[in-house]
């Protein structure tokens, strides 16, 4: 990735001619433009998980030109992953998911920097893993790690883009610490971990929504899923929106002051 500083705007980076061509169709969108594309280029995004959600999330963020992507996953590719985890192919079974993902993303867009980390996200390392990132995208397959990431996002006052799936269903919500409800605002106790059923198009839909939110947030366009949770039902093909609100007693964000 070539970083050309823009002397007229301190901290900004200019696009190369090749990047202007690569991203031409999205630069044409008034809400993005060259300034928005430059913003994407100088952003660093953490994708927590390289599975069903992580696959479309990583593909679309890489294709959109996010300058730096840190992708974290502990797992190796299993044949039962291939129905939905489209970053991984049959030849990748047995490889680390982040290694498989790194290869595909680097070929998709060699102009960005992909950092693949094969680690288990836990209390002891989450702070280090998030270090330097502008935001976190939730692509986890379990709730405890989601709450952990939600907590560190709130602590660092960086956005957390939540997504989850099951079967033909999914949900998405955007957490802006101090401004919106966070995941912990509605916490009602631990739930048992399950081997969840899922069809690949469910994480495809939800992952694409999460990426839409990330891009909108970075370029400052549109209305985010703030204080509203979006539920997707692929069987009925419906999207339903529910309002949520900050919990002043929330263990993660209750102490934060900010606009409601």
């Amino acid at each position: 990735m070539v970083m050309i500083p823009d002397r007229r705007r301190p901290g900004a980076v200019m696009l190369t001619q090749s990047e202007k061509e690569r991203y031409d169709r999205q630069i044409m969108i008034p809400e993005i433009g060259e300034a928005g594309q430059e913003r994407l280029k100088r952003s660093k995004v953490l994708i927590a998980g390289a599975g069903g959600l992580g696959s479309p999330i990583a593909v679309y963020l890489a294709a959109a030109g996010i300058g730096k992507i840190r992708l974290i996953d502990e797992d190796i590719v299993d044949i039962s992953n291939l129905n939905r985890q489209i970053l991984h192919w049959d030849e990748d079974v047995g490889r680390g998911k982040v290694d498989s993902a790194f290869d595909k993303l680097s070929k998709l867009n060699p102009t960005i920097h992909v950092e693949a980390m094969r680690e288990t996200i836990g209390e002891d390392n989450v702070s280090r893993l998030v270090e330097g990132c502008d935001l976190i995208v939730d692509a986890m397959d379990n709730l405890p790690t989601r709450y952990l990431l939600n907590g560190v996002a709130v602590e660092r006052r960086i956005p957390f883009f939540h997504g989850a799936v099951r079967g033909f269903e999914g949900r998405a919500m955007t957490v802006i610490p101090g401004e919106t409800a966070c995941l912990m605002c509605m916490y009602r106790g631990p739930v048992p971990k399950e081997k969840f059923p899922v069809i690949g198009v469910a994480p495809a839909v939800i992952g694409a929504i999460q990426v839409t939110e990330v891009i909108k947030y970075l370029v400052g366009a549109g209305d985010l899923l703030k204080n509203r949770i979006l539920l997707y039902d692929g069987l009925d093909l419906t999207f339903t929106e529910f309002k949520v609100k900050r919990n002043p007693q929330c263990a993660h964000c209750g102490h934060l002051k900010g606009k409601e």
Partner: protein
Amino acid sequence: MSVKVHVHKTHRQYTNNEAAIEMEGKTVGECLQGVGKKYPEMRKLIFTSRGKLNPLFEIYVNAESAYPEELAKRVKDGDEIHLTLLLSGG
């Protein structure tokens, strides 16, 4: 007085495939108790052995979260309760 309780798709096997059930009650808890009385399998799903709301459920009344005291939340004629599931997959 009637409140409509929307049942999650995966639970309709326990409600004779009814997607929404008309219930009487002054609170969410009363309405859900009514659902449990009519469909005993639903009672086992919705409530823990101590009579609390199963943490797998999220409850919305008229498309707004009923958290934190969901069961005590008052409802009125024409209100709609959605029983949704907390999803954890990725």
